[in-house]
């Protein structure tokens, strides 16, 4: 699993912009505290938050899953903020202020994201209208039996 992840990081890094190749996996992330937080409630929040932050280096991984150096730093930051008594909102805001909305896996509904959030419902509505119209048109057509009787005078 770990090897697969590293491989994914490598392939992702190589495929993306050249200047980033040095960033993922270039150094061991051993310099950071990464064990469990003694307080289980804080540990649960730590898991929750890090799974909802996007790693900026390998953009399809969460901060919790990524082996990139930056992800390790961001995990350390989240841990420190939790231990300092910061709320989840404060932590998300801290990340958003620095890296933009992109860092959040659950972006808030606003003018820019309303299409993403609204699209499934819009498509459901369009589909519903189409189905309704087809059904209504068909229900107006004569039934096969009536056709039969009608065609034999």
């Amino acid at each position, binding site marked *: 699993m770990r090897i697969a992840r590293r491989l994914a990081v490598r392939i992702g890094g190589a495929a993306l912009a050249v200047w980033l190749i*040095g*960033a993922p996996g270039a150094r061991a992330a051993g310099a950071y505290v990464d064990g469990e937080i003694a307080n289980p409630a804080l540990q649960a929040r730590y898991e929750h938050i890090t799974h909802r932050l996007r790693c900026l280096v390998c953009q399809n991984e969460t901060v919790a899953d990524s082996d990139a150096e930056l992800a390790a730093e961001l995990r350390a930051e989240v841990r420190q903020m939790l231990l300092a008594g910061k709320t989840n909102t404060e932590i998300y805001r801290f990340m958003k202020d*620095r890296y933009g909305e992109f860092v959040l896996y659950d972006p808030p509904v606003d003018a820019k994201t309303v299409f993403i959030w609204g699209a499934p419902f819009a498509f459901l509505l369009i589909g519903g209208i189409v189905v309704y119209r087809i059904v209504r048109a068909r229900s107006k057509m004569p039934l096969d039996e009536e056709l039969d009787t009608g065609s034999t005078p």
Partner: protein
Amino acid sequence: MWKYLLPVIAFVGLLVLFAVGLNPKRDLHYLPSPLIGKPAPEFTLTDVLYPNRTVSNRPLAGHVYVFNVWATWCEACREEQHTLLEIAQQHVVPILGLDWNDDRGRAQEWLRELGDPYSGVGFDQNGRVAINWGVYGAPETYLVDRKGRIVFKHIAPMTMQVWNKEFLPRIAAARRGGA
């Protein structure tokens, strides 16, 4: 009428979507920084070359300066080093450096070997300063105006072309306007 028009509209819509989404020139890694127009985060770190001295952007308040993030593990940083030296020789603005997640010995060797365009290089060992600046790769180069706001961010190695086109005009504007 709508029966014929709707598929055409849908097709054009898809075409636009694909043209934007599949454009090979689009840099998937480019993220607009939310820090543009915001105050540059203050920092004080030890100097890479002189561990008993500190480097800070506080004394530069009221001045236009460039902030460059690099590291010895970043190959592209090696590439841009000669450009930074050339820029430093123009004596237009001071270049403040941030050595991100690095080994001090290796960084010192790098500066001795390639040359030192910086007015000072902060040694950011655990990446705390980089996080405050929203750094997510190296090299990154920022421009800060006299009011201490981040005016521009360039993600990728610095080139003379970028310097002349993106930085110099903004530096001139920052000097004309503002306090």
